[in-house]
């Protein structure tokens, strides 16, 4: 109920309603072309496929709303899958320990990103670009170029399987449940003191700092969450699609597109995590629509590019048109 209320609040206020309208429009179009889409199995399959991007969007949201970028998530997703395959190497018993290693690795990468950005004052664009190169090279260095080993059945479970025999619905994929859990956690986090200070920091870090906020710390924690989201996404994608050298490639741009499509403003301080996740869902729905329309998959990037430009241009245009009652007083300083 609470999520619903948050979602509807986001719909009404904050100017992030556009993404929900867009999502609804796409769903209507899909329903028009293929009414069968809204039967449980295909809907669940859609959500299962969308889950990694939605989770990544939540992680990226934390970073973007605090005024930074995380370009390293795609490489991190790829690294996690490769690490899992190499370390598990088909042994079921290693699944849990390796999950622990992945978790530490993901958190560690986020921590390093955050510390370099906040303590060394390197722009996050550069930090995470560098991290992307480091991860890309280090993983291939470690595996000798191509991924080695294989994943265990248990590892692949969350990305592939689900709870079967649910009345009405049939199978609920684990990925969908994980997505819901991650989404709920993200929404909850944004309602805690941490979340509030994170947004305030992205909006005006000086004001936050003078109010006693540890702006560097919250920004670093945001990167850690992004690293965590890449870890979970890696688990799901690895399970769903298996191991390959290409896993995660270009995902950083897709996820930033999704978050921005949700109305979250690069530079920080604006937009909600619900809308960011809705942006990811919208992007996936759009790809589904293309499939339904039998558009070649290769045209997807073009439409994605056009939509992202249009969405941001529209938001920028609306911001400049909005009446700003307070601006007159800025100039009123009769000192």
């Amino acid at each position, binding site marked *: 109920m609470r999520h619903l209320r948050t979602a509807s609040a986001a719909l009404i206020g904050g100017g992030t309603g556009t993404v929900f309208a867009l999502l609804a429009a796409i769903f209507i179009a899909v329903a028009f072309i293929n009414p069968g889409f809204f039967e449980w199995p295909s809907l669940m399959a859609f959500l299962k496929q969308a889950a990694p991007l939605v989770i990544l969007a939540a992680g990226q949201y934390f970073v973007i709303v605090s005024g930074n*970028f995380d370009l390293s998530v795609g490489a991190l997703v790829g690294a996690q899958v490769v690490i899992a395959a190499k370390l598990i190497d088909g042994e079921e018993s290693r699944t849990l320990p390796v999950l622990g290693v992945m978790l530490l690795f993901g958190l560690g990468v986020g921590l390093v990103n955050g510390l*370099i950005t906040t303590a*060394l*004052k*390197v*722009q996050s*664009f*550069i*930090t995470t*670009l*560098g*991290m*992307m*190169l*480091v*991860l*890309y*090279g*280090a*993983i*291939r*260095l470690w595996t*000798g*170029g191509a991924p080695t080993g294989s994943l265990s059945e248990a590892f692949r479970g969350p990305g592939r399987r689900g709870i079967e025999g649910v009345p009405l619905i049939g199978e609920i994929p684990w990925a969908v449940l994980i997505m819901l859990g991650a989404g709920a956690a993200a929404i909850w986090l944004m309602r805690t003191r941490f979340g509030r200070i994170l947004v305030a920091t992205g909006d005006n*870090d*000086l004001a936050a*700092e*003078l109010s006693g906020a540890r*702006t560097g710390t919250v920004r670093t924690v945001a990167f850690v969450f992004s690293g965590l989201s890449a870890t979970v996404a890696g688990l799901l994608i690895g399970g769903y699609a298996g191991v390959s050298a290409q896993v995660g490639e270009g995902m950083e*741009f897709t996820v*930033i*597109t999704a978050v*921005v499509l949700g109305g979250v403003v*690069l*530079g920080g301080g604006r937009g909600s995590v619900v809308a960011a996740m809705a942006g990811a869902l919208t992007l996936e729905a759009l790809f589904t629509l293309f499939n339904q329309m039998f558009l*070649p998959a*290769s*045209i*997807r*990037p*073009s*439409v*994605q*590019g*056009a939509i*992202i*430009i249009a969405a*941001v*241009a529209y938001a*920028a*245009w609306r911001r*400049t048109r909005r009446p700003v009652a307070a601006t007159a007083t800025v100039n009123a300083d009769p000192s």
Partner: protein
Amino acid sequence: MSPRRLDTTALIYLALAGVVAVGGAAVAMDGGNLFSTANLVDMFTRTSLTGFLAIGMTLVILCRSLDLSVGYTAALSSLVAATTMDGDPGRIVLGVAAALLVSGLIGAAGGAVVAFLGVNPFIATLGVGLIIKGYLDTRYKGPAGDVPALFQQFGYTRVAFLPISTIVMLALAAAGIWFLRSTRTGHHMYAVGGDIDIARMSGVRTKRVLMAAHVLCGMAAGTAGLLLAARFGTGSAESYTNLYELDAIAAVVLGGTLLLGGRGGIAGTVAGVLILAVLDTVFNVMQINPFAKDVLRGAIIIAAVAIYARRQLGRTARRPRFDAATTGAGTGRP
């Protein structure tokens, strides 16, 4: 602030000399010679493609903008050139012109979205890049067009150890340095990147300057595309997968140009390109796993920017009234 603070460009060339010295020594200890003709050729060949892209990228970054579409622009340009030339030496000029025109227009499109629609350059140029990517993926399933042998010379001929393409790149760099220094538009790029409001208040036509930077960046990417076409002998849509744009950005920031604009220059960028090329060659000669190069590259970029971050000039200086000795330490403002 020390009275004789080292100029950033001097610093980066010093770093380049250091990298060459250390690299040369390492190769020598390994029993090789970094400065053999073959190795020099390899080194310089590596500079030209990134160099073209990085020179253009320097202009947009100086304006506090960005262009993430250059890799795609280069790929498209290679196709436009190769299909226009279509194996006919008589159509080389036409092919080059077409490629530069198309890439300039793409730059203009990105620039217009940034300057007139007020879209964040990251998003604007990522979007433009994706649009081109979709077009390339849909339209071209593989190599297309045919580059006449004469034009392929651009990719392969060399004078002593200097490939023609590197000479062209260095000439373009020199032209770029001259452009930034001697033309109004070029000079104003520093002002636009430094503080767009002050620039506007001083009568600088900020939108025009931004547009110029983006168009020139697009055309530089187009030149890179011509080089790709010359090397491959055909137009290659796949070449965007190499993420050239990230290499170019890396070279630019390594060369001391501030990602937030207003400071830096093409001389530094060339040094940045050279450093990356020297590292590549050293790794290659010493037969170190090529992936170690990526690791090192990422680390170097971060380290370089962290060092530059300590060398910033402040815009507002509050004057200390008492114990002036402690001024340099900063006022501790958050």
